[in-house]
């Protein structure tokens, strides 16, 4: 396998795929969600997916607002439920490419049930979970992925809860494709998202994003540049090998394709059981 990220930026212009009337977008300065959105659009462009045949389903929160900027069929649904909406949409319209954009609170807290069952069910769609460790839009409250001891507006004395590892959760729930990447690695993230698209079934990608304005500052994690660099430094790409490099990067988050297994896609499976619904 070629490990080099495929650089094709020569002609890719994200502005061609955005609803430019809405710009500048609402995200805070230095928000990693912008880079994640670029990686998504770049991957779609490289995969030749028509914006007409794409459906982007978002939840609520900072991540949920990204859909509005994509010039495609976009759905801004209710808090935690985008996977449920997307399941209905993907089953009713298998001709559409369904992408779900969700956040750590949206996907792991209020929508946790939908996530595990989407992983288990394996309906063909791609779920991108933007993990910035915080509920940004509501004012910086603790989320299921906030690191222990970190300060948020609802943990003024530090967070006492452990972190939810979304990728391990997805894997345990049976997801056939699980991946993780940091926003700073835009071309690598783009390649990961492309692989997720290629997977026939439910694919889950956790994107480590940064919230400088209301999380990073409060925890003295530096400005966006420091945050994204330290996120990158705290990861261990899959190509490094898991065991060999562990001594050099202890306690670091593995990135890249973490799980890829052959599973029959839900719709195909259902049709194979009784293709015409004969009694």
């Amino acid at each position: 396998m070629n490990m080099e990220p495929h650089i094709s930026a020569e002609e890719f212009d994200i502005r061609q795929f955005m609803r430019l009337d809405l710009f500048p977008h609402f995200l805070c300065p230095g928000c990693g969600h912008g880079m994640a959105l670029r990686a998504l659009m770049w991957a779609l462009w490289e995969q030749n997916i028509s914006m007409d045949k794409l459906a982007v389903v978002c939840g609520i929160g900072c991540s949920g607002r990204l859909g509005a900027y994509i010039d495609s069929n976009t759905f801004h649904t209710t808090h935690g439920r985008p996977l449920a909406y997307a399941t209905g949409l993907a089953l009713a319209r298998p001709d559409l490419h369904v992408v779900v954009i969700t956040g750590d609170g949206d996907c792991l807290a209020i929508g946790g049930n939908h996530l595990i069952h989407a992983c288990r069910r394996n309906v063909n769609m791609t779920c991108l979970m933007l993990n910035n460790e915080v509920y940004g839009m509501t004012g910086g409250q603790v989320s299921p992925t906030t690191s222990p001891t970190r300060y948020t507006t609802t943990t003024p004395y530090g967070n006492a809860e452990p972190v939810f590892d979304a990728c391990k959760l997805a894997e345990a729930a049976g997801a056939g494709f699980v991946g993780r990447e940091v926003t700073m690695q835009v071309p690598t993230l783009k390649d990961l998202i492309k692989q997720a698209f290629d997977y026939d079934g439910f694919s889950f990608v956790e994107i480590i994003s940064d919230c400088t304005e209301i999380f990073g500052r409060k925890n003295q994690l530096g400005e966006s540049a420091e945050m994204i660099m330290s996120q990158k430094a705290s990861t261990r790409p899959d190509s490094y090998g898991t065991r060999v490099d562990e001594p050099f990067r202890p306690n670091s988050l593995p990135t890249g394709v973490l799980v890829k297994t052959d599973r029959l896609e839900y719709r195909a499976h259902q049709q194979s059981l009784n293709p015409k619904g004969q009694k």
Partner: protein
Amino acid sequence: MSASKTHPVTNVLVVGVGGQGVIMVSKVLALLCQRQGHEVKQSEVHGMAKRGGAVFSHIRFGKKVHSPTIPTGEADILIALEWAESMRWINQLNPETGTFISDTHKIVPPFACRNRSRNQKAVYSKETPKDVLGKVAQGYALDAVGVAAELGNERAANTILLGVMSTVLDFSVDDWLDVIAKFVPPKSIEINKKAFLYGREWVKEATIPEMNGEVEIEKAAELTNELEIIPAWCKGCDICVRMCPEHCLELDAEQKVVNARPDNCTGCRICEWLCPDFAIKLHKVPVNEKQPDAAMVEA
């Protein structure tokens, strides 16, 4: 030519960028030599795939080989899978008898191949195949990746170069193909055979001066980089300023990014990629078309 007159040794240096297949090429050669009854020693630097770094492999074969590495200036064949890498290692080649074989395909790593010091102009290798002419005894440069893509699979580029190299070494075509088939996926055996034979055919006509037609590199040298910045979209997050490897960018008094040192821009696109607000777009424009004020475009 070799370290010892009594035991003539042939030295082949394979170079490229991590992930290209340097090790595959050297393994093919090593196995082939072994099958022909030679003693083979191979020495390599690898594992640079993720880092986009330089990868090389020394292969020495003959009746008896003592040292695993090739002394500087004694390589009989330099086979490069990437153009800038061929330039990096060209001094390893024996200037009187060495054969230079390179792909003109370029891989421009944003960080790895640049001068890191402040205000240093750093660009991709400007040498063209023509420039190599006086430095080597025999040379071949071709766009193997482009040809391989036409044949149906970019990954067969290395096999084209092996085909070129096979004209210099004294092994039979069947032996080559037999070994290559051992190292490529079963599905691609056919395409690799085609690629190998293409390389052999191509050599019959090729000489370096004709390779001036490798317009890709000539064209690349004429392009310049222009940043289109939409100030209205820039939120002054400072990411691009901090991450630009050449320190080109600055925030102005209104906390909007400006390209303060446009001449240093190498077109690596880091700023474009990392801008969360999509406020920066890099344009590669021909030098003569560059507008003096085009770097700042009002939204």
